[in-house]
């Protein structure tokens, strides 16, 4: 019997047991039906984005399915960072999986306050700074479209945080690599690429949008080729550790991101359809490595052969 391939990866200063994490907002607080989701076998869990105050989120309808994609407008519904820390985190920690807390806000101060509530809290491996949510009018996407304000947020949080920072980038920009570079220079240890793409759908009968807010964020397999191009650009331009995300539904998909240089990936929308998709993807990657005779995932990461 051959040995199981080594799936552990380093993302900056952190080590994860496998490169398959789940993406913010697509896995609740991680504690919902862990038997169904196989949460204990994950490389890591990124929490729903947490804000300093609880948020009730946007009015229904919040989801609209499009070909191979899902438009969402959740509006960062969350219990707030304090209740997360006090009520959700203890249970989440019991899963024994690295936890990345995603934090969001409307202004740099909000992010700083949220980070302060998570200072020295045991069991949080990193903070993912969501400067790219397309469904919150006041902040979110605007931060990332202006690299300087994204950087200001990172810099401010860097001063108070006790764990590495990941900057979650928006794909809705001309040059994601530039934004990534600025975030890295501001103190992000790793870059998560990408959040959802701005999309829209309209009901021709009512002349109204399917999502009451008008636009939403597109996720799911439809965006995979777009996300992969953004990840490759981010890897190439920044040289920083990148966590790939966007449309991953199969082991083959995840491998594409790792090949172009992502050091880990986050699985999102597919978990809605297949609760333990992330676990299955991890299994598929193990099988791939065994079949290819590779000792571990590090032998595959960044092996992309770009055209001459």
């Amino acid at each position: 019997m051959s040995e199981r391939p080594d799936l552990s990866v380093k993302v900056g200063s952190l080590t994860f047991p496998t490169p398959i994490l789940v993406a913010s907002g697509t896995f609740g607080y991680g504690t919902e039906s862990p038997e169904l989701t196989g949460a204990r076998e994950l490389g890591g869990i990124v929490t729903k984005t947490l804000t300093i105050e609880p948020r009730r989120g946007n009015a229904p309808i919040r989801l609209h399915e499009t070909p191979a994609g899902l438009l969402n407008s959740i509006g960062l519904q969350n219990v707030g960072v304090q209740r997360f820390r006090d009520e959700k985190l203890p249970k989440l920690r019991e899963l024994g999986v690295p936890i990345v807390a995603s934090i969001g806000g409307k202004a740099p101060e909000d992010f700083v306050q949220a980070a302060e509530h998570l200072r020295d809290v045991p069991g949080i491996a990193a903070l993912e700074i969501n400067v790219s949510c397309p469904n919150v009018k006041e902040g979110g996407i605007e931060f990332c479209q202006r690299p300087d304000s994204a950087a200001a947020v990172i810099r401010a949080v860097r001063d108070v945080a006790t764990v590495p920072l990941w900057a979650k980038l928006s794909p809705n920009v001309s040059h994601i690599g530039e934004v990534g570079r600025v975030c890295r220079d501001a103190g992000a240890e790793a870059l998560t690429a990408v959040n959802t793409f701005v999309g829209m759908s309209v009901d021709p009968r009512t002349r109204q949008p399917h999502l009451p807010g008008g636009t939403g964020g597109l996720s799911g397999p439809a965006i995979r080729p777009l996300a992969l191009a953004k990840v490759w650009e981010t890897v190439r331009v920044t040289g920083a550790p990148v966590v790939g995300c966007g449309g991953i539904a199969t082991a083959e998909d995840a491998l594409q991101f790792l090949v172009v240089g992502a050091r880990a990936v986050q699985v999102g929308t597919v978990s809605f359809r297949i609760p333990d998709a992330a676990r299955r993807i991890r299994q598929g990657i193990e099988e791939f490595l065994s079949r290819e005779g590779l000792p571990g995932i590090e032998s595959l990461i960044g092996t992309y052969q770009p055209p001459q």
Partner: protein
Amino acid sequence: MTSVPQSAPARVVSNRRLNPEIHELVLRLPAEWGPPEPGQFVQVECLPANPFILKRPFSIARSRLGDLGMELHLVYGAIGPGTEALTRRRPGEMLDVIGPLGHGFRPVPGRRPVLIGGGRGVAPMIALADGLAPNYEDGILIFGARGSAQLYELEEVPYPVTIATDDGSVGFHGNVIQLLEQLRGRGELRPEENALYSCGPNPMLHALSDWAGEHGFPCQVSLETIFGCGFGICAGCAVPVHAAEGEESDEFGHYRFACVEGPVFEGHRVDWEGVKE
């Protein structure tokens, strides 16, 4: 006790048309699956693996543990790509099913049950009748529909069935509220003796909740909204509710996740103005 939800492959036992708008799908799951409670639902893979499409939620219309496993009956309308695809599934094919999911009906102790199903919403009423009958002998089931074409035969339902059609083609001529009003007028329904349980189109549930509130009937409704996951991880299924008496804003503001805290809600708790109809 509520069963832990599982993801399991289900075999299609039969899939047939009950009337021009409604189909019945019978699935067989492993015997260990469930058992579901009345009002719970399942998430069903409508298309085979390849094209990406979310699973779709369906109320469980009936469940029976047999020699070959747990049989689930679903009653569904073909209204879009998912349910259209479901009509093409043939006996013997396998479909992934997640469940049992959600919070079902909670019998109101000592009250004679009045079950009200509108259109394909009659499905969970069958499960509820099956579940209540052993303890609540004298229930009734009202089946409301636009007309005869929207009706179908309810087999082996333990309660007497009264039909109401908008066009009067079968049974009572009028909608279910009008029928309830008549029964109440005749003294056959009393707020202090009956409890209402319902599933159907949102406008009907809204009207029913208002009517029940007005007259003081306890009333539980099974609500439909757009689901992403069905088990609490996507925050897509928000239903606006009124704060309970003395309650402050809580975990989810005044939204509840229909997939976890519902789909069954107390009718008066739902903030119907905010529900997409």
